[in-house]
């Protein structure tokens, strides 16, 4: 409908070469959308002037929901009226990001109707992200998506849309049903997701094994990582098959094992399971030969966040092992306690990991009812400045429990 409004010599450079080009894609959308058309113009201007022109803030949303839409605007509305509003809509993705092509078409058809046609599948949060619409269209967008069974995701100081790796649906390494856990947590925390009432954001991400394909330890307040308690079962004939196909088992597996718990003499592979840290290296490289056995469950880690405002954190171990089976009662109750403690101890805009750091692990662990464990630390404290409570003497030291 609209023809190209802006000269874009710099962006045109980025259409050259054999690779996919975001410029080509936005140009396609611009044929139908004034918003996409002015997006091109503004990006070209950003390239030319070497600065951005987006601004965010200003609460926008739909009735009954406190989050899910992020207000975004151009700072140059007169020059680029098509992006005067450029709101982002988060759609709660299905566990593991499985869609039928019909579902994707449906999502795109609705979006072509109300938005720029540009999407981000998927955003860093895990949500399916629709880019660029105006405030007036929001109720209609929500009505149409929700009538087809879709829901908004989380934003702001709220439970964010939980996300998970594709788990047992596509991966033999998964120790837990990540998809079901993610679905159950999403249902359980609907209220917290849609009506922001937390000190700040709270993200839950679930991975089936230590490979952690959803980067939960790098960017979730609660990281759920599937694991096992038991031996790694070895199929020696499959080990020989790997060797025959050219794998240098000593160089690639034995020597790269971080705990050095594997031996291989050219005939037989042995694993000292007591020394194994379940890092997944041998299993990932020799999947046909090696397989965990025994009890399955998860390690819960907490606290990761990106650099702003006072530095990045990685999640650390809180619960070394928890069984995770329907209806996940223990997990759900534990999460409620975590959030309660956070709510009681946090200033506004403090992530839970930061609050645990300020208040100390003891306050948090005691509240949620988890005992101290060497699994929680890389090493114990160094300086001999140690806090004691009266009860410690009764419970631990007088009993000589060491």
């Amino acid at each position, binding site marked *: 409908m609209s023809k190209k409004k802006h000269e874009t010599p710099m962006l045109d450079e980025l259409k050259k070469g054999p690779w996919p080009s975001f410029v080509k894609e936005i140009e396609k959308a611009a044929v139908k959308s004034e918003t996409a058309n002015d997006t091109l113009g503004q990006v070209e201007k950003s390239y030319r002037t070497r600065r951005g022109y987006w601004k965010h803030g200003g609460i926008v949303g739909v009735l009954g929901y406190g989050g899910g839409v992020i207000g975004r605007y151009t700072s140059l509305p007169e020059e680029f009226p098509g992006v005067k509003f450029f709101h982002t809509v988060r759609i709660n993705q299905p566990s593991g990001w499985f869609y039928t092509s019909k579902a994707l078409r449906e999502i795109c058809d609705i979006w072509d109707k109300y938005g720029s046609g540009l999407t981000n599948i998927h955003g860093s949060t895990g949500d399916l992200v629709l880019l660029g619409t105006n405030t007036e269209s929001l109720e209609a967008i929500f009505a149409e998506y929700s009538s087809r069974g879709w829901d908004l995701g989380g934003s702001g100081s709220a439970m964010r849309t939980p996300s998970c790796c594709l788990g047992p649906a596509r991966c033999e390494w998964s120790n837990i049903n990540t998809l079901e856990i993610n679905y159950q947590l999403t249902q359980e925390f609907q209220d917290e997701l849609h009506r922001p009432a937390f000190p700040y954001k709270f993200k839950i991400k679930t991975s089936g094994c230590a490979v952690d394909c959803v980067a939960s330890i790098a960017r979730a307040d609660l990281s759920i*990582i599937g694991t096992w308690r038991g031996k790694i079962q070895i199929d020696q004939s499959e080990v020989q098959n790997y060797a025959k196909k050219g794998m240098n088992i000593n160089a690639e597996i034995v020597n790269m094992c971080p705990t050095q718990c594997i031996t291989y003499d050219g005939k037989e592979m042995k694993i000292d399971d007591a020394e194994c840290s379940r890092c997944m290296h041998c299993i990932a490289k020799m999947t046909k030969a090696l397989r965990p056995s025994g009890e399955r469950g998860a390690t819960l880690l907490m606290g990761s966040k990106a650099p702003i405002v006072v530095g990045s954190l990685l999640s650390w171990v809180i619960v070394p092992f928890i069984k995770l089976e329907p209806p996940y009662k223990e997990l759900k109750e534990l999460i409620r306690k975590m959030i309660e403690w956070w709510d009681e101890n946090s200033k506004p805009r403090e992530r839970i990991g930061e609050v645990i750091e300020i208040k100390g692990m003891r306050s948090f662990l005691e509240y949620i009812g988890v005992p101290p464990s060497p699994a929680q630390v890389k090493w114990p404290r160094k300086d001999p400045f140690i806090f004691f409570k009266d009860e410690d003497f009764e419970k631990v030291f007088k009993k000589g429990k060491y």
Partner: protein
Amino acid sequence: MSTCAAQSTNKVRLAVACCVNMCGAVHCSDIALVALHTKVPPIDHERVGKICEIPTVISSCPTRAISPDPAKKSVKINEEKCMYCGNCFTVCPAIDIHNPESDGVAIVVGGKIGSLRSAPKFSKLAIPFFYNEPPRWPKIIAAVKNILEVYAKNARKHERVGEWIDRIGWEKFFKLTGIEFTFQHIDDFTFMRETMRTTPAFKW
């Protein structure tokens, strides 16, 4: 670019962050580019009084560089403490951090998100600053290519960039890549203590 390296070593997660928050775990990438500011932002004092909430502006600063300026009914910035994160701009558009002449890009390397073999790692600073050169940023591309090539040539099979650097040592990384080590590389934000080398056992 990651395909060439993948053949002999491991995958390379190459990520780009438009601001220092490095959303989506960009801060744990094998190689990442991050856009940053490098100058203390100017304050439009007249607008601050009109459109900004002064206590919010003051508390937005992670290094406590912002204090009230009662005479101007505005705020002032301690230039020694400001590290240009732009958090004040987020809450107060009258402190415009944009500066096309001095805004630029840093390259960080060696991060890792999962616990496969080794624990997750933050990316660390490799090159502190490049001028912003759209549309193709040729110097950044050349620098990333250099890092990738040195990695592909020197790392062992299955070793991620960060695992390779941890094995050889950061001093060796700078030597092999020919990247200059500057004052910017030394952590002087808040966590210097754990980053200092407390042994004379390093490589020449």
